[in-house]
């Protein structure tokens, strides 16, 4: 049984411009001790889904199910959730400064995190705090516990935050864009640290990021999200070597140095959609080079495809249309050709009409 099992999670926010449908029926599992990478662009719903599990999205309409060790998280009251947060599921955020209170000493904050959940004496908690700081390789932890957050460098703050998150030996750590604001060498330090802690504590991790490099480095399995839904899910090798979904394929082609790119980059056209007006059918169809009529009409189910064990994809292309090389693209192309009809013609016409002066000569 999975440590965390999320089924059909849906999150929406009412705003003055309309309902933002941030997550639309997302399902995934996290196994004990494993790392799941959730990849997506701005507005793909990747952070929202994680925050919703922990009840950190006030004002959102949430439905679906999220079972953590037999407990339904979405049914818990706030005070019950607080007991889970920190102790069972910990979270680290992108900005280390905003997660540490500026007016309290680092050691005190870690102590509080411990004493909120465990009955320990202040002295014992402080001793643990020092130990934790040592564990995250902050030099001279005896001195550092009495430092204020602003007295630590960016890297040290990030590590202090991790110490705090790990204080109660959680079973699951959710890292929301943990490396985004960091330099390459600091990123490497941090991920090495997290990897070491994961092995030591045997905890599972969800790494939420837009950085495919990070996913390639740390994830066991990968979930690619687009417009609030899972687009593709597979083990890390399959995602990079035999992706099925054209969005995953497109991401790989647009990153310098990634498996699918070589020479000139091939960007995905257009922008991610507004979550208030999500395109019909498959939300990716306006940007998809392999869009067919069915894609405009019907939302594809998240079904097994042939990349490997547990490889799921939400795309109308045949299950064996996987791969990153030119041959795979040709095969996709051939499949698509006979399946384009009036809907795609209308889409092309709309695009041409929206352009100034109609079609532009193509060089």
């Amino acid at each position, binding site marked *: 049984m999975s440590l965390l099992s999320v089924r059909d999670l849906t999150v929406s*926010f*009412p705003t003055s411009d309309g309902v933002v449908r941030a997550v639309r029926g997302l399902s995934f599992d996290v196994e004990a001790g494993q790392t799941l990478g959730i990849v997506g662009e701005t507005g793909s*719903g990747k952070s929202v889904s994680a925050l919703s599990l922990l009840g950190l999205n006030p004002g959102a309409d949430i439905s679906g199910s999220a079972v953590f060790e037999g407990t339904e998280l979405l049914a818990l009251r706030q005070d019950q959730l607080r007991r889970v947060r920190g102790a069972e599921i*910990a979270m680290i955020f992108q900005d280390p400064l905003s997660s540490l209170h500026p007016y309290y000493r680092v050691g005190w904050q870690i102590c509080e995190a411990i004493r909120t959940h465990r009955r320990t004496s202040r002295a014992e908690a402080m001793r643990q705090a020092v130990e934790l700081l040592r564990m995250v390789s902050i030099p001279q932890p005896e001195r550092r516990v009495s430092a204020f957050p602003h007295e630590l460098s960016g890297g040290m703050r990030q590590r202090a935050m991790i110490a705090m998150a790990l204080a109660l030996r959680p079973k699951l750590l959710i890292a929301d864009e943990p490396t985004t604001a960091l330099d390459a060498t600091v990123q490497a330090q941090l991920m090495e640290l997290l990897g070491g802690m994961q092995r030591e504590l045997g905890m599972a991790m969800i790494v939420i990021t837009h950085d495919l490099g990070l996913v390639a480095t740390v994830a066991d399995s990968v979930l690619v999200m687009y417009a609030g839904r899972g687009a593709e899910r597979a083990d890390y090798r399959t995602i990079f070597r035999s992706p099925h979904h054209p969005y995953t394929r497109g991401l790989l082609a647009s990153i310098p140095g990634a498996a699918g790119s070589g020479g000139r980059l091939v960007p*995905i*056209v*257009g922008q991610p959609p507004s979550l208030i007006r999500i395109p019909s059918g498959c939300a990716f169809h*306006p940007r998809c080079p392999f869009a067919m009529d069915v894609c405009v009409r019907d939302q594809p189910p998240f079904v097994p495809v042939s990349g490997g064990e547990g490889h799921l994809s939400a795309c109308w292309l045949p299950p064996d249309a996987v791969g990153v090389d030119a041959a795979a693209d040709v095969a996709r192309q051939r499949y698509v050709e006979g399946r384009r009809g009036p809907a795609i013609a209308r*889409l092309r016409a709309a695009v041409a009409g929206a352009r100034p002066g109609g079609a532009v000569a193509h060089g």
Partner: protein
Amino acid sequence: MSLSPFEVDSASLVAEDEQSAEALDAIAGIEGRSPLRLALARLRSDRVAWLAAGMILLMVVLALIAPVLSSMTGHSPYNPDLVNGTDSFGQPYGPGQAGFLLGTDNVGRDILVRVAYGARISLLVGILSTLLATIGGTALGLVSGYYGGWIDALLARLMDAVLSFPYVLAAIVLAAVFGGSLPLTIGVIAFFSWAAIGRIVRGQTLSQKEKEYVEAARSIGAGSFRIMFVDILPNLIAPVIVLGTLLVPVAIVFEATLDYLGVGVGPPTPTWGNMLADDQGSAGFGAWWFWVFPSIALLITTLGFNLLGDSVRDALDPRTERLFAMRRKKVAAAGPDASAGAGTEPLSDGTEA
């Protein structure tokens, strides 16, 4: 490489890979509104703003029709009329007596006509002095914040000095030296008000000039003047408008205070301050209409501007979107009162502890 079908087809489907971004947006329907239009739309949805505008409009109309009132009733705002304006015992008329809607004062002048004329002075002083203070304060605040260094040190200290000066005392001294007059009153009020705006503008300028768009302007060769007035100034309009709106009632009360103390626009000019200071003579406090009507006029005006200022501030502040969304929802009376979350990727709003 260019033979990859992925690339070829994306091109044939949507014309050309990079240029098609726009077109796809048109389909996705991403659109926005200019900040000013958004603010106006929000202001229109604000009932308090409508009320405030109504109050101000009432006073403006009163000011505009003051001469009409005077000629219609035949009552002069200046000249005492002990014959028609007082009863046979020389006592002033109360409201509604002898055709005087709001009564008369000690020397028989129609209080309605005088209140209407007073509105002219009050609005003139309030708006003109605020305008002067706003222009001066904005210009000096911009210069101070943008240039920094000794210019800033000098101007910032000057603003502190002006703000901490006992202005009533200064006004009394000035009036004693030059004699009270309308231009002097406006000048004094403007002089003691600009620093409040200047200080805010200076602070805003300090933060705006660190923005990358200022650097971008410099990189294309824009001079200091252009950067200050073309690039930075539009970004200060919002706080300046709010502050300006809120300064008008302050100026009006200031003027009334100076008049009341006898160092503003002197009698017999009909101002609300002068009317409040009018000798109640033998009528004593029994002649409540002497002071109640000018007070009500003063109250309506200042309340109107204050409420309008608050509404404008809310309308211009993007952080209040939630408030407006809720208000709209209430107006529409639609569904449960779920509080609105704005972002699609909300920032972390708590720690895990």
